[in-house]
């Protein structure tokens, strides 16, 4: 065994005690003397990282996990300290959280709400996790958020873009750093107008499930406000792999813009198919035919390859940003793993730091205290510019990036270029905006 404790493995080893569980987790019960769910009594605190490790989003999950491990390393004083150097709040000191060493357990969501809840429950019940974070789809995020609410732990959402997560399904114990479909629409609209004009006819292909619908609704509303006409909206089955029969009629419809409200494998295939059909070389109504993918991720861009070139979309964060926070994060992540982080990695890293900082400021791990510390918290230095964690719906408000597929990528990670950084003010909405109405945060649940 190595004697140096500074090697990467040495760190992993010390952080690995997590798997053994902590003393006496007090589960789902009022019978215990603990003040709140899974109150850490020992010298360590356990976080639960619930990411897709199998299924189509496994690579995204792997990137999230890398970010979490990096965050834990930094919180425990390892590495270069990462974003703790640039974070506007200086409470974190590299000595764990509230002096307790940070440990973690991991689980596999399989991108299924059932499996995700099962693995979250096992982390809470078996390993005594005090906070659950991660995920790569809105269905999973909403389901796990609901579980954490009833179990009495904090949920720091990973990648979830549906309006519902902080809209009709918002929960007092749940917090989202990632942006949402409404923000995508609001950020994209002005760019679409300046690049493609106000007289456009849009054709929507939408994945036939909740996230797809909220995205379609948001984009339709934002583009129609510009004066665009929505020619047609077509729902496509989630299980579809070949989108040819949905794309073929587009050319015939008189539309000159195709909006693909798809994510993951659906998006890769529909975009590939659309480009195959030569849509981008066509001229309709005297204008170049354009394709828009409102929600972009680097992994999807990699999957679609050449086809993303010149295609507009929005994203939460991109590693080419030049602010101090982004540069620091790219450096820490890049030096550890050898390639730049994805937006999923950034949001998960930020969520972990935000949680740790909130505990530190609240002086407790009690979910109610942590929630209070996060609510209306304003911060900067995590890569997204000045950000507000709004109390009314637990949604972060920050700048949104409009990006475009790069024409001449220099590496397999250099696929997108930032077209515009839409300021937070422009994507902010009222908490009772109709697209987000119908939910109720309820009150925070400490579990005991």
């Amino acid at each position, binding site marked *: 065994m190595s004697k140096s404790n500074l090697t990467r493995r040495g760190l992993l080893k010390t952080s690995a005690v997590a798997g053994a569980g902590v003393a006496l987790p007090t589960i789902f019960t009022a019978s215990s003397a603990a003040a709140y769910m899974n109150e850490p009594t020992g010298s360590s605190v356990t976080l639960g990282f619930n990411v897709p490790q*199998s*299924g*189509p*989003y*496994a*690579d*995204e999950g792997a990137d999230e996990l890398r970010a979490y491990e990096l965050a834990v390393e930094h919180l425990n004083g390892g590495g270069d300290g990462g974003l703790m150097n640039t974070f506007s709040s200086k409470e974190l000191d590299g000595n764990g959280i509230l002096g307790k060493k940070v440990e973690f357990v991991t689980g596999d969501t399989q991108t299924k709400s059932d499996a995700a809840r099962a693995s979250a429950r096992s982390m809470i019940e078996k390993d005594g996790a005090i906070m659950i974070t991660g995920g790569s789809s809105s269905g999973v995020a909403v389901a796990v958020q609901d579980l954490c609410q009833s179990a009495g732990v904090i949920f720091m959402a990973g990648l979830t873009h549906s309006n519902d997560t902080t809209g009709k399904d918002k929960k007092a114990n749940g917090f989202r750093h990632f942006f949402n479909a409404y923000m995508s629409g609001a950020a994209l609209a002005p760019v679409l107008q300046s690049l493609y004009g106000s007289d456009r006819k849009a054709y929507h292909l939408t994945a*036939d499930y909740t996230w797809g619908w909220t995205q379609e609704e948001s984009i339709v509303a934002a583009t129609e406000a510009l004066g665009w006409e929505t020619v*047609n909206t*077509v*729902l*496509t*089955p989630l*299980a579809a*792999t*070949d989108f*040819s*029969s*949905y794309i*073929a*009629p587009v*050319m*015939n419809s008189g539309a000159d813009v195709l909006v693909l409200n798809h994510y993951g*494998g659906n998006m*890769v*295939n529909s975009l*590939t*198919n659309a480009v*195959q*059909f*030569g849509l981008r*070389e*066509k001229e*309709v109504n005297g204008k170049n035919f354009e394709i828009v993918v409102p929600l972009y991720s680097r*992994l999807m861009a*990699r*999957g*679609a*390859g*050449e*086809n993303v070139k010149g295609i507009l979309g929005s994203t939460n964060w991109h*590693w*080419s940003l030049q602010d101090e926070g982004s540069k620091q994060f*790219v*450096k820490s992540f*890049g*030096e550890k793993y050898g390639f*730049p982080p994805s937006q999923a990695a950034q949001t998960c890293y930020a969520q972990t730091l935000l949680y740790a900082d909130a505990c530190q400021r609240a002086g407790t791990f009690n979910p109610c205290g942590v929630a209070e510390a996060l609510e209306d918290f304003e911060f900067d230095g995590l890569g997204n510019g000045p950000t507000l964690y709004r109390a009314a719906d637990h949604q972060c408000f920050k700048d949104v990036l409009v990006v475009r597929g790069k024409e001449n990528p*220099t*590496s397999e*990670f*250099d696929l997108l270029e930032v077209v515009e950084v839409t300021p937070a003010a422009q994507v902010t909405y009222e908490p009772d905006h109709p697209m987000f109405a119908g939910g109720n945060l309820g009150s925070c649940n400490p579990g005991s």
Partner: protein
Amino acid sequence: MDAIILQILNGLDKGSAYALIALGLTLIFGTLGVVNFAHGALFMIGAFCAVTLSRILNLSFEIVDESRTDFLGNPLKFKTTYIETWLGPEMGGTIIEWAVPLAILFSIPIMIAIGFIMERGLIKHFYKRPHADQILVTFGLAIVLQEIIKYFYGANPIPTPAPSALTGSLDFGELLGFQANAVIYPYWRLVYFVFAALIIGGVFAFLQFTTFGMVVRAGMADRETVGLLGINIDRRFTIMFGIAAAVAGLAGVMYAPINSPNYHMGMDFLVLSFVVVVVGGMGSLPGAVLAGFLLGILESFASMNEVKSIFPGIDQIVIYLVAIIILLTRPRGLMGRKGVMED
């Protein structure tokens, strides 16, 4: 009218993939009596043959370009492929670009070898076992194969483009006298359809006109009798399994540019191809082909807005609905022989 032509084209194209997979599946069932749940995985491996060849052709060495920097501020490392250095950028570039068609040649020996190993090493021991056991063992194999691919290639889809000469699309509408852009169709999908037709034709010709094929057909009809004639039917069936694997693999190779291959694409097609086989009639080759095209076209029609506005969600269920109706009205499938698995 143009919309209908378009959906027929789409249907033929989807149908080509269904038909190719179902053809191998029904061949294995017809000759060996084995329900092979790993057949989708063979299709997936075929697609990854294309990915692998393209990776091999893209093997490269690094040149450091001091004038540019990468994301960490270090000098940018430039990659140049060996092929381009050896054969010149033009020749080398063309070869790299034609990776997918070249992968046809590359994949045939690989797929046949995989087929042989599967049959000799595993399936052979399951001829006399119940279908449920066959399903379980081949399902296990399918999981193992796809997890191996995932381990080496990741879960993300890997773009595998067609040669640029074959990208773009053909304006059918103008050929047929409709307005421009009314019926456009990508060249590669046309290539896929023609390719599928050739493979299907080849398999049929092989079974129809060669002595080997005759023995196999006789074996499908009555295995014991052929065995009694002193013909080594087992060896021929092994070869048949290899051919079925190759057909699935080729279907996968050529499918790679249509949708970026990922490790679970086989599972996506598995259930569907079983439905196709059953609708066509277990063990009937023409049935599998017919059902493949039929379901492909029906699926395309069901995805038309005009149809969906009458039956919301019909495109989600049309294949299953058709399967149920056919099985209830014509239990042996469209072209199944009487008495085969009809009980």
